[in-house]
């Protein structure tokens, strides 16, 4: 039995994890040195949410996926060139600042405003997806706040799996302490799901999907609304790289047995 869903995925863009990050302080608080020229990618956990959303939509005919992303238009365009080849979605860009230092409450309010004004969105079918934490701020609150603003009180974080039931409800697995999942059954949408890794591999690039997506992405980027994020009393006193640099001892001339003996002592030491 088909249960058409309206899945809204909130996903930011983040510096490529392999880049060196250096904090600098500007007139508006901390940021990253050369932030605008660092290669960017879709936030990893939010990307998992997008792939899960596309998979869910494909299994439920009549479903639709929106991707809402807040960031500088130029960077969004760059990242979408790749992301658009991974899954079918309608991009709803919000032109705003990049980075982890803006206040999450302002970001959530901008996202909720945008969701409420999505043409054709049926709140009764809404599954609000995103990463449970970003790779920038990593606060784990933006999606939750957006859901709360939208009045959604069935929320799940650290999600690795959703399984739809024939009655429109679903079972969801959330990460909890001790390497376990908490299993919940929800009556159905609307709900918020902050995704962890999920179970799907990253889809291969599909140029046809990319071309279809790009036909709507470019006009959407041109029409993107700008968002000014308020600080909400948040003030940074410092932002710095960790000072700890270890003095590494590189041991090249020990046999496996000698290394094992050394490690056994180390493991057993108080």
């Amino acid at each position, binding site marked *: 039995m088909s249960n058409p869903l309206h899945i809204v995925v909130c996903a930011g863009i983040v510096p490529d*994890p*392999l880049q060196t990050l250096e904090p600098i302080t500007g007139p508006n608080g*901390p940021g990253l040195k050369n932030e605008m020229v660092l290669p960017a990618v879709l936030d*990893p956990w939010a990307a998992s949410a997008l792939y899960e959303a596309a998979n869910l939509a494909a299994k439920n005919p009549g479903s639709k996926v929106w991707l809402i992303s807040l960031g500088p238009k130029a960077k969004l365009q760059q990242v979408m060139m790749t992301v658009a080849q991974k899954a079918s979605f309608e991009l709803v860009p919000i032109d705003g600042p990049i980075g*982890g*230092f803006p206040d*999450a409450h302002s970001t959530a309010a901008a996202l909720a405003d945008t969701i409420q004004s999505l043409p054709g969105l049926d709140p009764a079918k809404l599954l609000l997806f995103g990463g449970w934490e970003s*790779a*920038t*701020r*990593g*606060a*784990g609150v933006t999606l*939750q*706040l957006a859901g*709360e603003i939208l009045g959604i*009180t*069935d*929320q*799940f*974080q650290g999600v690795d799996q959703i399984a739809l039931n024939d009655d429109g409800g679903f079972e969801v697995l*959330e*990460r*909890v302490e001790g*390497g*376990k*999942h*908490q*299993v919940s059954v*929800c009556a*159905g949408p609307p709900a918020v799901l902050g995704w*962890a*890794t999920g*179970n799907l*591999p990253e889809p291969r690039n599909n140029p046809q999907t990319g071309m279809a997506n790009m036909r709507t992405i470019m006009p959407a980027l041109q029409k993107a609304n700008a968002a000014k994020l308020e600080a*909400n*009393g*948040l*003030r*940074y*006193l*410092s932002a*710095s*790289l*960790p000072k700890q*640099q*270890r003095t*590494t*001892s*590189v*041991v090249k001339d*020990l046999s*496996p*047995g000698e*290394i*094992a003996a050394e*490690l*056994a002592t*180390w*493991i057993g030491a108080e």
Partner: protein
Amino acid sequence: METILVLTYTALSTDIEAGSGAALTTASLEAVTAGINLAAQLGATLTIGIVAVDHASAAASLASTGARLLAVSGEPFAQPRYVTDAAACEALCRDARASIVLAPGSSRFARVAAGVAHRLGGFIDTHITAIGGAETVEATRWFYRQRIEAVLTRETRPWFLLLDAGTNTPFAAEPGPAQVEQIQVQLPALRTTVTGLRAPTQTAQTIRPEAQLLLVAGAGWTKKQLDGKTHPTEAGDLILNFLRLTNASLGSSKSLVDQGSDNQPVLPFLTHLNQIGQTGATPRHLKGLSTCCHGEEPHVVGWRFITERRAISLDPNCGWTRGKADVVYIADAFQVIAKLNALLEANHA
């Protein structure tokens, strides 16, 4: 003057449906310590809120704090669930009229704290690792997955601070008679039911948050060895034996976990829950041993809170040698772990 509320909850029994245990969770007790310290630092009043099925035992354990004790209790609060936990925490916050709310950053309260802050017209910062400051409250947290450390403050109230586990000593004291104010909560219709906990389908438990030692297995374990062949079965046996002998927790790099979905040789007991680093966990263990892992930045950000670090790698130029580990052994992890297991086995015998 600031008014501080610490939100706590009692531990679940192993079977959620069977009810709840009576004791506060370790993370809750850590938050209590943080609350006591912050109240002393600011000369603030302290209130502690308890969410439980039955709060009596938890309240008794907090009697010596001298704090005002509030509780929301009843069967609906046995399950960690957004709608009930948010309602409980909201009621506690409204009654306490706190300007600063501290809560453990566990999965249960991380799920609801931001929503509660919004309901109260407040703001939240999470993953707090330290609270300092003399006249203002200054909170320390990490950004960009433990790559940049920042100290921040807020002028707006109420201010919710979610504390990372392991950053405070758990509060401990002899139980005593406690006066608790029971707060009533009106719950809406419940649409979500928690049916239980599920461990990964592997035969061995490999994630042990309380372990002293973390073993991280990288993708090298499934690559071709000197004989030109892969040995995933042998690798799996070596790793599982090591875990059995040391009670270590097992972490992994994303690349190794992902191999399972790419039809490459895999270690069958690994899941995404084992993942450490940029897209995984940042666990807290005293010691960490990396094996067959490059030690590049996306991996190492997951090691921020590992105190003593050692690595075994065949590559003398791997990332671990560049100030990220204390000791790097240039050697074949297959051989070293086999010898190490034999030694540990002999010691056990």
